[in-house]
């Protein structure tokens, strides 16, 4: 006789009263396929855990955001924020779509160059550029966004030693009504620092002032904050016109749009509450169009959107290692992907689905990673169908920041796979081996041996 399919025995008590903060039911169907490729096949071919990126999702998100702006504002340019995800395959998808590069270090700058980006289309941000990097960026004609006065003086000095005139903007920080206000980077608007810096640039005559930049923060839940930011930059631009008859080529509103992730502590899912691309685009475009600029004078609008363009394209596939009971009776499940791969688990309640079957029963589970560390918690509490050892789970919306802020810790890092638009899977970063870690080490001779 054919045996019946086994499911773990399971019982839950009905709780009366309000659903708790974590009590939202998770009735999401299993994620058996990503872009037409079976999760089980991906894990068999490439191992578990596994990072998976969807080329289709990246392009779709880009085109949607581009359209939101280009239908409202005449001149829009995106610059891919390398730190969000600088796998070259990912960067090149954005470059193929027309994005420039936005970099914040010499390492990222060189990476953009080696990816083939035209140096004049590289925006060089960040508080820590060296003299050599400034010389290189100047000679290449890249756009240098000055972060502080020391850099401004250094760059004026550099300008004296190279034949090209540095093409620059300043980064401006400001009160846009959101908390916390990011005032650590750039020159402040309200106290006049920004206007002072612009005057120094204009009087020096050594720098080619191209634009103004701001990046008001990240995961900004208020579209209106961008309207405030755009108006303040437009004000500075007008002052430059009035005092120096200088017309800026661009205003760069930075990044910071929220993705569809749910921030920790939120009651409602981010997909319901976060502003849409259209709302951000409307806020920024109307602030600029309604400012003093005449139609012909409107500067190029640059955006450095990071997480909102890539979060949804990323998945981590992971495998159940064990099911446990905590001393309190709580269910705990251990999976093979931990916070060393999923840095954003500290900010987000990542959506997680199972990859097979779909038991109609759910249990409230704590989901832990494989690190032998107390902090390794992927979700404190999540309602999941009953899972058995060796089952797979899919962690959603992991495309932003994880593949740059991940760390090799305790375990080696896994393969990263990109699924192209024809459902072919390509490894875009090889899994690490012993040599990836030990290869850079050196053992002094007296430590080479022991009994």
């Amino acid at each position, binding site marked *: 006789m054919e045996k019946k399919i086994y499911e773990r025995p399971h019982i839950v*008590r009905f709780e009366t009263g309000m659903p708790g903060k974590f009590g939202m039911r998770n009735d999401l169907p299993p994620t058996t396929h990503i872009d037409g490729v079976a999760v089980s096949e991906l894990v068999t071919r490439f191992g578990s855990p596994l990072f998976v990126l969807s080329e289709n999702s990246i392009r779709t998100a880009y085109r949607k955001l581009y359209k939101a702006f280009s239908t409202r504002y005449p001149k829009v340019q995106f610059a891919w924020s390398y730190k969000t995800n600088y796998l070259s395959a990912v960067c090149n998808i954005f470059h193929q779509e027309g994005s420039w590069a936005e970099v914040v270090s010499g390492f990222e700058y060189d990476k953009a160059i080696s990816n083939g980006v035209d140096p004049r289309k590289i925006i060089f941000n960040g508080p820590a550029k060296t003299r050599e990097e400034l010389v290189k960026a100047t000679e290449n004609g890249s756009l240098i966004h000055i972060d502080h006065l020391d850099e401004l003086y250094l760059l004026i000095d550099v300008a004296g030693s190279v034949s090209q005139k540095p093409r620059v903007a300043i980064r401006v920080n400001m009160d846009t009504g959101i908390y916390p206000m990011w005032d650590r980077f750039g020159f402040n608007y309200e106290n006049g620092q920004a206007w002072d810096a612009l005057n120094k640039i204009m009087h020096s005559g050594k720098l080619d002032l191209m634009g103004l930049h701001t990046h008001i923060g990240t995961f900004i839940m208020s579209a209106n904050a961008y309207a405030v930011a755009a108006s303040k930059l437009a004000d500075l631009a007008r002052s430059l016109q009035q005092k120096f008859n200088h017309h800026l080529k661009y205003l760069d509103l930075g990044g910071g749009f929220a993705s569809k992730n749910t921030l920790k502590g939120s009651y409602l899912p981010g997909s319901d509450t976060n502003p849409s691309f259209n709302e951000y685009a409307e806020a920024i475009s109307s602030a600029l169009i309604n400012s003093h600029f005449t139609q012909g004078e409107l500067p190029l609008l640059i955006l450095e959107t990071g997480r909102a363009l890539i979060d949804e394209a990323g998945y981590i596939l992971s495998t159940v290692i064990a099911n446990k009971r905590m001393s309190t009776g709580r269910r705990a499940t251990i999976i093979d992907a931990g916070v060393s791969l999923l840095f954003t688990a500290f900010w987000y309640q990542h959506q997680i689905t199972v990859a097979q079957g779909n038991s109609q029963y759910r249990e409230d589970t704590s989901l832990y990673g494989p690190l032998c560390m107390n902090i390794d918690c992927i979700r404190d509490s999540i309602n999941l169908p009953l899972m058995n050892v060796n089952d797979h789970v899919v962690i959603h919306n992991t495309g932003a920041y994880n593949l740059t802020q991940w760390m090799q810790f305790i375990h080696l890092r896994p393969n990263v796979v990109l699924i192209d638009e024809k459902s072919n899977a390509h490894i875009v970063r090889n899994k690490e081996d012993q040599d990836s870690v030990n290869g850079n080490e050196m053992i002094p001779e007296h430590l080479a041996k022991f009994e």
Partner: protein
Amino acid sequence: MKINQNLAVSESGFLFNPGTGESFTVNPIGAEIIALFRKGMTQDQVIDSITDQYHVDRNTFEKDLQDFTGILKTYSLLKQDD
């Protein structure tokens, strides 16, 4: 192992404990295990019966059963033999 004999278990997996007024949902295999205990089966007999019928190896089921009976005890649905 003694199951609380007053429990009312419906076919849809709804379980009511008249002693405490608490109600529970239990999945089909869980209901089956409770029924086997109510018939007076020992843990070993339950393991035999389930592993005969279902696609599961003895070790896996033994571990899951231990977990399940642990929860039944915390809900006072099952008592350890004296």
